[in-house]
């Protein structure tokens, strides 16, 4: 089955950011395909370079970077959100490897191509 993920929270904001990564890894282990992981709103901070986790804590950005190096789907940071959070100021210097900037059209296309689209960080009722 082909999946796409929408991540709306930053690594520092919520455990849901961890769940998004773990779910993505589990999908590949179960031989599903990931079309795209689209990061929007504060989720774009996942692709921000220069952030360091404490030595005894999970470095989510580092794990996403390694994940991108595998045969995973694209990791796309929403361009509008990236601009709002300052990731475009010095593009290339502020982005982690494996992440690219894309418009919301990428999310639209990914949703159309995917059997399932899951949101991590959507507000619970």
């Amino acid at each position, binding site marked *: 089955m082909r999946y796409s993920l*929408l991540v*709306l929270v930053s690594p520092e904001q919520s455990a849901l950011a961890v769940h998004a990564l773990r779910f993505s890894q589990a999908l590949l282990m179960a031989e599903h395909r990931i079309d795209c992981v689209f990061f*929007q*709103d*504060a989720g774009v901070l996942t692709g921000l370079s220069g952030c360091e986790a404490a030595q005894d804590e999970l470095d989510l950005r580092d794990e996403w970077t390694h994940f991108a190096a595998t045969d995973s789907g694209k990791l796309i940071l*929403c361009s*509008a*959100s990236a601009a*709002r959070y300052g990731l475009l100021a010095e593009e290339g210097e502020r982005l982690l490897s494996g992440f690219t900037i894309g*418009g*919301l*059209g990428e*999310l*639209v*296309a990914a*949703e*159309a191509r*995917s059997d*399932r*689209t899951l*949101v991590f960080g*959507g*507000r619970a*009722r």
Partner: protein
Amino acid sequence: MSNEADLAPLNDTSGPLVIIQGAPYQGYRAQAGLDAALSFAVFGKIPSLLFTGTGVLCLREQIGGSLGRKSIRKLIDSLPMYDIETVYVDEPSLHYWKLNATHLPSFAETVAADDMQSMHKSATSILSY
């Protein structure tokens, strides 16, 4: 209030159900959801847009200008230009926040809890903001 017949067109749309649950100026989550809904509409996949929880506050006239923010309500008022002809509003949330039809855009339609369940079931995918 809607009945099932009123909601039938939702089954025909190819766009996702976009749910706005965040207050209008609490971060940029509501704005992000509306941006996504507009993008789907621009690409011809007309979404169903549902406001629930504190998200219903996006629908009343706001003080965005004085906060230095764009008015979410003005953005919502522009949705029919993008072929989003109806927005759906969770009726219990509307009552909770003591809002009524006079606070809403003319193209807003309230939905009861049962109808919301139908919307969830019939949606091809759900994007929750």
